[in-house]
């Protein structure tokens, strides 16, 4: 059994699973995460692979259905002999994959901001936790626009949980939530008209959006059609990236605010070369965004850990991942050994007329994740 196969396997590729949607209502952002993942894998292979062995992705398209993520995670781990999976955007999809990687002791690399309050030994979290984006965003908004917030979100785990946390932050900073509403993940343009009507009546200072997927465009478009002014009442978001701005149109997105660890426009040599490699592969008008960047750098973290471990066995690989650091496009980041979350930069950006975010404010270094908000009042 095992022994002979392992000895012969020195030139065999390292197989990894990849789960992002190519279709369905989450494809706009998940396709960019797929691209970031594949770009990093290509770079590593072009440089000779890991310990002389190529990384080969085994990709499935869960088509934006949370249950399909669980199903394909099972296929990857029981039929395709994969132990490491890069994937998931929505929290529903992460929660579908979680029991599978926990029971079979795999690793899910999750490159998306999320609501916190989770810590699985079988997940590496490389997107922002609330203390890495929401807290700074809230303070920035209250200092610049006012204290009355209106919450609008898609109706699933992330927006509701994230707003629970945001509500607490808003209150602790002396602000108030004037209204809160949720729309289906497949909401149509017309579904946003009642939201706009309510905003007209309540006149908040800030619209805080956790709308995701195709519905993002509808919200910003409805806002533009209503003639609101982002200078006095911007839409602030943790999920609207360059990808969503491009989908809705640069003029529609201009002036609105997003908090993220990374924007394409942050500058610096590392970011510039990352952006140019991305554009070279996917086209000049394809922007990078925070989700591409996390999907990209986490593969490089994985490859370095794999080089040291020389094994895809989770119990051998994981110790090499925890505590490791990397010069990512966003700056120097690391994986906290205590909580499996990446320490990330906090940045506030405002979209300009070219579909890019101008950085209004940023942290002095990477901020350690506090997924359970233990030290955030």
């Amino acid at each position: 059994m095992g022994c002979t196969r392992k000895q012969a396997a020195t030139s065999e590729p390292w197989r990894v699973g990849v789960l992002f949607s190519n279709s369905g209502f989450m494809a706009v952002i998940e396709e960019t995460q797929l691209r970031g993942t594949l770009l990093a894998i290509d770079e590593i292979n072009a440089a000779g692979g890991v310990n002389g062995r190529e990384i080969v992705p085994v990709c499935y398209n869960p088509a934006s259905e949370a249950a399909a993520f669980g199903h394909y995670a099972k296929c990857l781990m029981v039929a395709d002999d994969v132990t490491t999976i890069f994937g998931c955007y929505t929290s529903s999809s992460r929660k579908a994959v979680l029991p599978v990687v926990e029971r079979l002791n795999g690793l899910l690399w999750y490159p998306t901001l999320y609501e916190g309050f989770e810590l699985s030994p079988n997940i590496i979290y490389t997107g922002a936790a609330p203390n890495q984006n929401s807290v700074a965003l809230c303070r920035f908004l209250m200092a610049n626009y006012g204290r009355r917030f209106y919450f609008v979100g898609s109706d699933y785990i992330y927006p509701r949980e994230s707003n629970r946390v945001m509500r607490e932050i808003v209150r602790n900073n002396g602000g108030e939530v004037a209204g809160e509403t949720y729309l289906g993940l497949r909401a149509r343009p017309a579904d946003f008209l009642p939201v706009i009507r309510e905003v007209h009546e309540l006149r908040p200072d800030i619209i805080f959006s956790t709308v995701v997927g195709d519905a993002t465009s509808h919200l910003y478009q409805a806002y533009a059609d209503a003639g609101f002014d982002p200078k006095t009442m911007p839409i602030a978001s943790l999920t609207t990236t360059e990808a969503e701005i491009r989908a809705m149109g640069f003029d529609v997105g201009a002036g609105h605010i997003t908090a993220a660890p990374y924007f394409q426009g942050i500058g610096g040599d590392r970011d510039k070369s990352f952006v140019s490699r991305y554009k070279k592969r996917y086209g000049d008008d394809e922007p990078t965004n925070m989700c591409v960047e996390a999907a990209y750098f986490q593969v490089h973290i994985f490859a370095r850990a794999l080089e040291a471990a020389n094994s895809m066995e989770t119990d051998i690989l994981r110790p090499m991942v925890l505590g490791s650091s990397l010069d990512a496009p966003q700056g120097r980041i690391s994986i906290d050994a205590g909580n499996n979350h990446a320490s990330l930069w906090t940045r506030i950006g405002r979209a300009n007329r070219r579909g890019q975010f101008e950085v209004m404010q940023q942290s002095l270094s990477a901020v350690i994740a506090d997924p359970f908000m233990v030290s955030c009042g």
Partner: protein
Amino acid sequence: MANSLKGGAPRGQDLRPAPAMGRLPVEASDLDIVVVTARDEAGETLIRELQRTRSRVRHVWPPPDPLPVDTDVLFCDLVPGLPARLPWLPGEPKAALVALVPSSVLVDLDLLRKATPEAVLHRPFTPAAIVASLVLARSRFAYERRLRSRIERLDATLRATRSVERAKAILMGTRSMAEDQAYHHLRSQAMERRVSVGVIAAAIVDAHDLLG
């Protein structure tokens, strides 16, 4: 059989292991059991012994894809492709699984690990081993389920604690209550309304928000 053997033979007189000593635990009796193996002599023994535990036993062969889901315990040959045929996601089993393996050839350990059975039963099956595997599988299955439910409740409690702390601070600030008074108020309101303290705390926090 197990049910009739209360206490067993006095110690020291007969050192052979008894087929099954003591009562079948509640979690291992009165079950729906599906057996997926060839109906040879060993298969018949297995079905007969399981029937003697007063469970309802159904036999299926060859293994369907997916395997039947409406059962408490699944006794199934460790066939190639078994992990993919299980009608649940790993980590969220809907039934306890006992893997049936031959004694003459090496077990495929990778297959065994991926199938995540709660117990393993080697051919030829003996009545004692059959009952032991049933009890072990049900016990492990129930234990994991309790652990998962504990984690779920811990998660919920962690969230509720934040609301409780905020509600406490609101009561102390607006009603000039002492800390222990505030906690007592939350507890008594929860008991009166027959809801959890977390629910009451969340309501106070929301109301405080609305009042500005």
